[in-house]
Each structure stands twice: as C-alpha cells, then as structure tokens.
C-alpha cells in the first residue's frame, strides 16, 4: 500500500466502521472524539501496518492504519484497525475496536515517546495531557521518523531535554516537569485496557495443567477456568492506574522486542530452528515439570504459530542460538577485516557461541589480543612481530644451560611443576593424547615462557587447564601464548598467592545469593536490556516503596508468561509484606473485593506473596528474590492448596548456607579458578569461555552462572541437609552433568535482574575485570614457584 496515499474520509471504510462501532469502544472519551471531522479534512500522513499488541503474543497483534489528519489548523491522530485480517482472526471485532483511536486532537496530546530498538520494530507511546496513554503503536513498516517530522510541520514539537526519545507537544513552559510527568504518569487512568487473550495457546494450558496435576493431584485444577473467562465489557469506573497499564504495555513491548530480535537473528535458520527451539522448550518444561523451584518464566511456553515466531521464553534469559558461522561472521567485518560493530559481535557470540572453525579467528579478538578495529593486514603484521617477541622470551629460558639450572632452584622447581602438570592435562583429548605428543611439549614451553614473561606470577596449577583449549584452538605456539597472556591479564589475580582474586569472587558470590528485594531500577533495567531505549522509571505513588516493588514485579512476571493475567479485573491489590510481618497494605482506592494474601516468610523466604484473585480464581505466587524468581499460578478452589504450595517451596539458599556455615563458598573454587573447565566436556568448555569472554551482559557472568547452578540444585541441597563437606562433594560430582545452555540462560536472567545491585556486589578489579594497575600486583609474592 502507498504510504502517502491521501484518502477522502468518506471513502474510508475503516473509519466509517469505527464510527459505527464507537459505542463498543472502551476508550475513555476525550472531548475531541466528539468532534466529527468534516469533509474538508486533509490526511497529511498515513502509515500502514501500525499495530498494537494486546498480549505478548506476536501473532496477537492488531494491525491498522495510522493517520494524521489536518482540519483547519488542528491536527488529529487516528489509528483504525483493519477489518478481518486473517492472521488476526482470533480477535473479535469488538476486541479490535477497543483499541481504535478516533481522531484525537494534538491539543490533547502531551508527548510522544519514541522507541527505536536496534533489533526490533520501532514503536511510539502517545501520552495525553490528562496523563492517559495509548498502548504502544508498533510501526511494522517503519516510518516513525516521518511520522514525527510530519507532526512537526503542523504543531510545536519539542524534544525533551531529559530524554531525547520523548517529544513534547505544545510544550511552552516547564519542560522538565512535563517530561517527568510524561514519564511517570501519576494519577492517571488508562484509555484502553487490553482484553485478555482468550485464545491461550493449548500447549500453555496443557503444560500448566500437567504440572498442576503432577504437583498436587488436585482435581480442582481446571483449564476451563483459563479458557472460560467471560469476555468482558469494560466498566470505565474500574480503570486501572496508568502505570499498571504502561507496565503492561512495556512487558508486551519487551516480548515484542525479544521475539522480533530472535526472529531476525535467526533468519538464516528460519523455521526449523524455531521449531527445534520450541520443542526444546517444551521438553525442558516437561523435564522440569516435577521441579517445584522451576521458574515459570523459564519455560514460558511457546505458541508455535506457523505464521509468527511466538516463542516467549523471553524475560528470564533468552534462548540460545546456533553458533556464529562463517557466513554470518563475514557480515561483522568490513572489507579490510575490521569488526565494524564489536558490541553486536559480542552479543551474537554471547547468545550462540562460535562455530569451531571460527574460534581461531574470533578468540584472539574476544580476548583482546587483536583489537577489533584492526585490519587483516594489521593482524598479520602484529602476528609476526609478536612471534619474534615470543621467541625472544622463550629463548631466555631455553638458553639456561643444565649447569646454570643446577644453581637456579626456582627455575628447576617451576619447570618441574609445569612438567608434572602438562602430562596430566587433557590427555584424553586427541590433540594431546598419546606418548610423546608434541602438543604436550608446546603446552610446557608456553607455560614456561609465560613464567618468564610474568615472573612474579609464575606458574600456578590451573594455568595448564586454561591454556589447553587455547592452544588447541589457536594451533600456533606464539598465537596461543599471546592469547593466554591476554586471558591472564584478567584471570591472573585468581592465581595470586594470597588468592585475593578468588576470595573477592567467592565473597561476591555470597552477596549475590543474598536475598534482596527487587528495586525499581532493576525492573527498569530489565526492560531496558537489549534495547536502545532508555530506562523506564516506575512511579511509586500508590504503594509503599516496598510493596510497589512487589507489585511491579508481579506484573513483570505475570504478563509475559501468563496470558490469563487480567489486569482489568483487579480493582486493587493487597500486598502482604513479610518485612512488615504480614501487615496488609491496600492500594489507595482500597475498594477491596477479592484479594487474600498469604505471606510466607518463614517457609519460602522473604518477600514472597501468595495472592488470591477471587475474580478469576487464581492463586498467584510471587517470589521477589534476587536469587530466585518464580510465579506459579494455579486455579484452585481451596486454601488447602496453599499449605501444599508452601510445603513445596524452599527457603532461600543463602540462609541455608549461612546456617550451615558455608558462606565461604569454597565449594565453588574450582568453578571459578579454571572457569568451569572441569565441569564441562571440552567442546562445551570452549563454548562457555567464548560466551564469558564477550563480557556481555557482564564481565562477571561466571559468578551469575555459579548462582544459577546453585539455584537449580537448591531444593536438593536443602532437602538433603548438605553440610560443607557433602556440598563440596556434591558440587564436584556435578561435573559433566550441568546443562550449559539452560544455566547460561538462568545466569543471564539473574544478571539482568540483579542489575546494578548485582554489579555493586562485585568489587572493582575483581577478575576478570582488568586489575587496578599499580604495577605491583604480583610483586609482594615470595616463595612462589
């Protein structure tokens, strides 16, 4: 369709239809909608394929036509959904029309917030001066810029000083205040409430049904209750507060971005991969369905829609992707071999790793041996320079005669130690196996040369483990040496005599698992992750801070993974706070009609809530815990279930460790020192390392990986009352049994959710951050070999 097509409104069937069906609209009426546009109205902008997502399902979009209409000197905005679009057949006309935006005048628009995520469809949020906001409008055919440019021709449009993506309409004064209010939207009520998604994917229901039965043997679970919620007419008196709506929109947005990103990044593998992935997800779900502590979101189930990629396993760690292959790799390079967008590359490698054939080339970049901006020629040049430099250092020890060595105890001992270790490093890997394997000698030579390159640090056990895959991948002595040097730049402090690097990480680990409430910034950063949009502040108007967090969290959790969540049916919330010891806090319009809250601090840890929504007969279990996120929702009839539910849940791991005097986390020592090298088979280790080396989304993802793995076994650890010894044994024996991809996803989710709070747990300079260089890092060591 032509983008700049000019319509006569009288010919616009959509518009006419919307006029007729206006009574069904749940739009809050603004004065302007009462104005009828006269025939002299001129359409100054038309954009097809602008859509609203009433739910998180990508296929559940309502597409329509966005227009700017000028009448006399006034500008109006309309958005009319298409009729009877086949891909949107699930939505009734009524539902579609709920969202119709009928000729809103720009005099009533306060601001337009623009979101242009790098890897997803751009969208806008229109905020009215009353504080109301429309759901995000997604520009599937692009055109946000032209849209804004057109507006600018007709009304005063000012970019907010506070946020470059916010455009203030008719803003003549007090920009700051306007910006803030446009962001926070206090007192506001929504214009439209999303209809619940009635066509919940069968698999979701079946899965949940299956799990519920599995867990509880309680016949009262009924999928019909998920299905059978009546289609509702919305009572304007039951408006939600706008921030709830906006959050709901944002969650949808997040889902949208995630799915679209997947959609794009997976384009080369298209459908088969999606199917595979979806299947994997379902498998995961089934496999884990007997696990109580699973994260619902982890397996937020898949609407396997043949039209659209509807995978929604989004918020808590994105699905892993296939490794980066050589065809795709070329795209990251310019003609001379520079990596044009290292951030994008790191992100890509983070989510999928590398094809083995690419490791040789990409590892040296990830490790920082070659700069991303270097050309092929520059790398070749550096390679030859570094080769001779390597030979020089190597020559330093090679030229030590046996007579000299006799008087050089430290050298002899160091050499002896290295020789003892290389012959027992990965000898079952073909590359190193067999007697007199030359690669074992190269391993020795590199380590010995390194101990001369960094004499203060010298050699320490574990280094051979770190070098082995690097030599295997680089397959060149000098290149492997320099990549190892780059790695030790970051990990060297782990091997320091006082083990400071290790201790700081183990300490950070203990803090990362500590129970914390999720602060608003965390939620904001969650939404922000992976997008180019700015952080979204959340207002805390109606609730105490503490409870507001829980509320936000509730929404963050429910919306993406539970399509049945009915925000419009809630008139208020009771949030019981374990911090207040079960005091009830109502929202300010405390028309309490339905909610029962059961705090379960002692049984399932702090900041946990079970919320009974009588309107939909759903239990919502909300766990607001940095170490553990779960939202379980069940249809039940009786309170008996709560006891069962509580019984099924564990108290936080941290408290358990504390009680058991295990807070030194020494049982994670091996994981961290050699970066899980002994925990995974060789190929998986290489995959993990390249993922960690991207330092995306954190330099310290390995610590979150520790938390993720511990978290996964928390139930077992506590149930079996493991003491320090048993725990160490248990963790050592996990070797070879850890699901890398699943735990990476959990780790990513933990990292995102921990946000700045997580980062604050990790002191500056903690490996693999580059050390705070005072030039004497290793100098204080003595007696080292």
């Amino acid at each position, binding site marked *: 369709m032509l983008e700049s097509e000019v319509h006569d409104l009288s010919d616009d069937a959509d518009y006419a239809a919307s006029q007729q069906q206006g009574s069904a609209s749940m739009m809050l009426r603004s004065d302007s909608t009462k104005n009828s546009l006269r025939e002299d109205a001129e359409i100054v902008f038309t954009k097809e394929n602008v859509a609203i997502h009433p739910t998180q399902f990508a296929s559940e979009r309502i597409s329509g036509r966005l227009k700017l209409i000028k009448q006399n000197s006034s500008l109006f905005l309309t958005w009319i959904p298409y009729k009877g679009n086949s891909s949107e057949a699930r939505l009734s006309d009524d539902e579609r029309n709920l969202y119709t935006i009928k000729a809103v005048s720009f005099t009533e628009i306060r601001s337009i917030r623009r979101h242009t995520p790098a890897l997803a469809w751009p969208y806008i949020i229109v905020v009215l001066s009353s504080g109301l906001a429309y759901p995000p409008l997604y520009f599937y055919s692009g055109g946000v810029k032209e849209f804004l440019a057109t507006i600018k021709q007709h009304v005063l449009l000012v970019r907010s000083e506070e946020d470059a993506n916010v455009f203030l309409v008719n803003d003549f004064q007090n920009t700051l205040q306007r910006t803030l209010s446009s962001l926070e939207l206090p007192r506001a009520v929504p214009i439209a409430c999303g209809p619940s998604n009635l066509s919940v994917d069968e698999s979701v229901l079946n899965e949940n049904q299956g799990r519920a039965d599995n867990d509880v043997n309680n016949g009262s679970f009924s999928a019909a209750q998920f299905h059978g919620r009546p289609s509702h007419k919305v009572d304007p008196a039951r408006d939600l507060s706008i921030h709830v709506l906006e959050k709901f929109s944002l969650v949808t947005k997040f889902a949208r971005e995630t799915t679209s990103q997947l959609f794009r990044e997976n384009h080369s593998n298209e459908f088969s991969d999606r199917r595979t992935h979806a299947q994997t997800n379902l498998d995961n779900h089934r496999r884990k369905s007997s696990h109580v502590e699973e994260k619902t979101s982890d397996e937020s189930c898949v609407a396997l829609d043949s039209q659209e990629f509807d995978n929604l396993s989004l918020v808590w760690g994105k699905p892993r992707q296939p490794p980066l292959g050589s065809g795709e790799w070329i795209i990251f390079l310019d003609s001379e071999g520079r990596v044009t967008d290292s951030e994008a590359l790191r992100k890509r490698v983070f989510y999928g790793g590398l094809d083995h054939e690419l490791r040789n080339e990409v590892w040296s970049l990830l490790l920082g041996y070659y700069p991303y901006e270097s050309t092929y020629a520059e790398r070749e040049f550096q390679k030859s320079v570094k080769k001779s430099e390597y030979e020089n250092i190597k020559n330093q020890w090679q030229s030590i005669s046996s007579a000299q060595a006799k008087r050089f105890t430290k050298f002899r*001992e160091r050499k*002896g*130690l290295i020789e*003892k*270790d290389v012959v*027992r*490093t990965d*000898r*079952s890997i073909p590359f190193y196996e067999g007697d007199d394997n030359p690669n074992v000698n190269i391993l020795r030579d590199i380590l010995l040369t390194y101990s001369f390159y960094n004499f203060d640090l010298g050699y*320490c*056990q*574990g280094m*051979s*483990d770190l070098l082995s895959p690097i030599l295997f991948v680089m397959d060149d002595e000098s290149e492997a040496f320099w990549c190892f040097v780059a790695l030790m730049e970051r990990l060297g402090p782990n*091997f*320091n*005599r*006082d*083990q400071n690097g290790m*201790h700081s990480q183990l300490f950070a680990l203990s803090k990362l698992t500590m129970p914390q409430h999720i602060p608003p910034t965390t939620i904001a950063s969650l939404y922000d992750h992976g997008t180019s949009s700015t952080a979204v502040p959340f207002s805390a108007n109606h609730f105490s801070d503490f409870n507001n967090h829980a509320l936000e969290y509730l929404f963050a959790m429910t919306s993406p993974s539970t399509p049945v969540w009915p925000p419009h049916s809630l008139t208020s919330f009771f949030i019981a706070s374990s911090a207040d010891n079960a005091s009830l806090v109502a929202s300010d319009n405390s028309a309490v009609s339905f909610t029962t809250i059961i705090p379960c601090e002692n049984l399932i840890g702090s900041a946990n809530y079970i919320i009974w929504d009588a309107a939909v007969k759903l239990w919502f279990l909300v766990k607001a815990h940095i170490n553990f996120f779960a939202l379980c929702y069940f249809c039940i009839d009786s309170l008996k279930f709560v006891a069962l539910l509580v019984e099924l849940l564990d108290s936080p791991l941290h408290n358990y460790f504390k009680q058991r005097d295990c807070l*030194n986390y*020494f*049982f994670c*020592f*091996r994981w961290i*020192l*050699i970066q899980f090298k*002994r925990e995974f088979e060789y190929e998986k280790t290489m995959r993990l390392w390249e993922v960690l080396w991207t330092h995306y989304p954190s330099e310290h993802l390995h610590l979150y990986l520790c938390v993720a793995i511990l978290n996964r076994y928390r139930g077992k650890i506590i149930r079996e009352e493991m003491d*320090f*010894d048993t725990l*160490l*044994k248990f963790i*050592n024996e996990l070797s070879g049994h850890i699901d890398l991809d699943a735990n990476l996803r959990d780790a990513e989710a933990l990292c995102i959710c921990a946000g700045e709070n997580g980062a604050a747990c990790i002191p500056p300079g903690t490996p693999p951050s580059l050390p705070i260089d005072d030039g004497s890092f290793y100098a204080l060591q003595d*007696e*080292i*070999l």
Partner: protein
Amino acid sequence: MASRRRMLLKVIILGDSGVGKTSLMNQYVNRKFSNQYKATIGADFLTKEVQFEDRLFTLQIWDTAGQERFQSLGVAFYRGADCCVLVYDVNVMKSFDNLNHWREEFLIQASPSDPENFPFVVLGNKIDVDGGNSRVVSEKKAKAWCASKGNIPYFETSAKEGFNVEDAFQCIAKNALKNEPEEEMYLPDTIEVGGGGRQQRSTGCEC
C-alpha cells in the same frame, strides 16, 4: 553392627604437587591407578567404610591441591580433621624437605586442640619408579625425621602398584580413631581393619 552409630573419621592428605596424593587415595578406596589424574584444583574427598570388630566407620579422605599457593583454602578443608597424612616423593628431595612446612601449615590452619599429640602419618611414595634407582630420599633419613616429630608412623608406598597402601591406611584410620574424644569410644586392645598381612617395609604403627 548396624545398631551402632556410624562414625566419621576425617583424614587430610597433604604434600607437594605431584607426589601422588590423588593416586594414593584412589588406590586405597577404589583399588585403581591411573597416570592421568588431573592436578587437583581446590579439594575433593573419597569415603570408605572401614570396620573395627563390630563397629563401622566412614573414613573420609581429603585430597587437596599440592601447590602451596592454594593454602589459604586450607582453613576450610582442614577443620575437624582426625588425622593428617603427609606424602612426599622419594625421588624428589624438595618434596621431603617440604614435609615440615606442610606439617606446620596444617597445625596452624586446622588448629587442633592438642597439636603436640595430633596424629600424623608420613608416606614416602613412588618407590616403584625406575626400580628404586632414582630415589634420593633414603628410608633412614625419612624415619629419622618422623622420629624427631614425635614418632610419626612411616610407610613407604607405591600407589601405582598398590604396594603398602592398605597397610598405611589401616594405620591412618587407627590413628584417626585415637584422636576421637574418648567418651564416645570403645577402644579395643587390638584392631583388625581388614585383610592383608603387614608388609615388610612398613615400620608399622606403635599401637
């Protein structure tokens, strides 16, 4: 047997890197030897059930990293130990010289209640290497050192060939048991840990 409370005896193996700590532990517990044991990172342990007359004990044998740089972890791993096994390689003088260091380090980090009488056992390992021709620490020298430290029992072993390992660990278990609080214990006059006669080269335990 089953009616009695099973007791845990914790044993720590210390010694320089590559003297054969992991191998000794595996030879004793699993009766297996591999020359491909990886360098121990952090710590690990194996357990073995041992029987003294009508009582069952669980021997928990801790294998630790040999490089002294990892000693700051010791405090977590050594606590509650009932016996400490010091291992050296009879072919490497330095590993013998370091025994004193390991012993002191252990006493500092584990801080047992009665350090003077805390049970140690010394093992000189790898006596099989090169038919004994490459050996640099004599049995006499080793015994002299053990005597000077309060008559520490001494065994010469080959983890590779399984030589003297069983006997050494019988003695280790027995000594660990002695370290237990007495009120818990019924101490028989003679203790039979399992089959196998005492080997010639063992100097044996004095108990």
